[in-house]
């Protein structure tokens, strides 16, 4: 899949805006998950600004593709992408985690139009995506079902129950994108609970598996296109991402999994200006946040 250079540039710049919004909302909220949100900014941007069939002004449109976020704690990135796509005003992002907000610390389907499911308790998103894909097939509906999962939530047995069923059902209309950022709250995934070999496990369960650089728009879009072209299996795209991507002091550090800028993890001295530093860095980088920039 070849994307026009201008399109790639446009997506890269939008992803940077999404990242800046993530930092701004987390600083304002004073709590929340930084690393995973930043790491998935490129994939969410690709989805909301290029891949998805959707209409932000008509979030209940029947024919829309369904995007389910299973690891709900990275919702700041989804909120930011949705706001920039036009689902709600960008300024509403500042209400994150505050009393009365539609943007709870973990997503709530009922209050936020366009949010396909509530999530937070890990491991149940893929099951819901499987249910949607089966229901679509029963009625011969053409919607694509996208499910975003994390590597860490693959500790949960339910994810594998869903993976098994998706394989048995040969759900061609289901594409899972796994955020393979190698971190979870208590440490690196392979230290907490080894997940590898992920590719072979999923292949054994009857999935078509692709591995990509999760910060490369051509790779993201190309993998989704390939997933759509595979008609006999569900597709898993293992997206290798850098947690904290774009903010150098956060990158690749599991300690930033559950902390906002300014409140750093316990072994990091909290700095009041960390949020400003992060924003300054992102502004300097512009559309140049690629895996190579490191």
């Amino acid at each position, binding site marked *: 899949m070849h994307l026009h250079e201008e399109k790639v540039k446009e997506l890269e710049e939008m992803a940077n805006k999404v990242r800046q919004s993530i930092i701004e909302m987390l600083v304002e909220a004073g709590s929340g998950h930084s690393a995973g949100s930043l790491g998935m900014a490129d994939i969410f941007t690709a989805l909301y600004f290029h891949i998805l069939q959707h209409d932000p002004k008509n979030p209940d449109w029947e024919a829309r593709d*369904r995007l389910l976020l299973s690891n709900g704690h990275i919702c700041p990135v989804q909120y930011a992408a949705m706001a920039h796509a036009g689902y709600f005003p960008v300024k509403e992002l500042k209400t994150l985690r505050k009393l009365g907000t539609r943007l709870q610390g973990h997503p*709530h*389907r*009922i209050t936020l139009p366009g949010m*396909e*499911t*509530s*999530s*937070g*308790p890990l*491991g*149940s*998103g893929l*099951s*819901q*995506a*499987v*249910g*949607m*894909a*089966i*229901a*679509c097939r*029963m*009625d011969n*509906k053409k919607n694509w079902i996208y499910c975003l999962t994390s590597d860490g939530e693959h500790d949960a*047995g*339910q994810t594998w*129950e*869903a993976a*098994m*069923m998706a394989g048995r059902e040969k759900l061609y209309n289901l594409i899972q994108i796994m955020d393979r950022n190698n971190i979870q709250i208590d440490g690196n995934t392979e230290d907490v609970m080894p997940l590898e070999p992920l590719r072979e496990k999923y292949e054994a369960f009857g999935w078509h598996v692709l591995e990509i650089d999760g910060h490369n728009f051509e790779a993201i879009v190309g993998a989704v296109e390939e997933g759509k072209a595979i008609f006999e299996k569900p597709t898993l795209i293992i997206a290798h991402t850098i947690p904290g991507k774009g903010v150098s002091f956060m990158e690749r550090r599991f300690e930033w999994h559950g902390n906002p800028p300014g409140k750093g993890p316990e072994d990091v001295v909290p700095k009041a200006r960390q949020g400003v530093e992060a924003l300054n860095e992102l502004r300097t980088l512009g559309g140049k946040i690629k895996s190579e920039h490191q």
Partner: protein
Amino acid sequence: MPLNKNAKLTDDVLDLSKVAQAPTRDGFGNGLAKEGEKNSNIVVLCADLSESTRSLWFQKKFPDRFLECGVAEQNMASVASGMAAMGKIPFISSYAMFSPGRNWEQIRTTICYNRQNVKIGGAHAGVSVGPDGATHQAIEDIAIMRVIPNMTVLVPADSVEAEKATIAAARINGPVYVRFAREKTPIFTTLDTPFEVGRAEVFWDSEKPEVALISCGPMVHNAVLAADMLEKEGISSRVINLHTIKPMDEKEITRAAKDAGAIVTVEEHQIMGGLGSAIAEVLAKNYPTPMEFMGIQDRFGESGEPNELIEYFGLMPKDIVEAAKRVIKRKK
């Protein structure tokens, strides 16, 4: 005879030698098969227990709308949530111990918090499961279901009412839990017995009752037998079939407390958090009344024949009679 005529119970309700018997789970199977005919959006999911939950009766008629989930109740609950999001009306079925026992959080988050139109059929609830023993006897399910916002909780008294409850659940837009039992129990309601979700039904109605016996599920029949025994001893009573634990018919329960001044609750469930607790919550607020709580007293079940277990756990009509006398003595 103080049997409430309007309840249109069977003529042989008081005669255990004559009354026909069937398990309430049969009503689930029949209800699914009948309503499935009328509404093509109904789909049924099962976790490797389709024969004993009777979901097989639906599968035979509508194989394309049946989804075998294997022994994976957590996945089943969330798959159902996803299907409901696309317009289906999924019924998930297993033993109550596993669904909602094992998949409570998935029911809470992906079904109730999402307000998805999923129905949960919990089979083999109560100690009357029998020989399978305590691991398979769900006696906590009413408590864990009624505590979740957006959930409706139904506990039908016999197989006829179970069919009505299943059909009613399909027609409610929102999550519903319906509780079923394994063992054959008396069929004492009829097609003409009123059934409306959220409305308690008076089955026995002596003049000037001294005590009200409130029950749900097959235990309602034991309550009716107990009322008959009390009547013969000159003690008048009222029996209420509280098939809907949530939303609670507060008006009818409060009226019973005011009229009788003493309450006995009877359930095949832990006394903590079940029918009795739900009634106590209402009465403590509206009309504090002495109560006796009959059920499983904070312990696990046992292996045994169903009737042995009901006797062992003190839920026979004679036990209800004793509880009624105790609570009447406590009246001020």
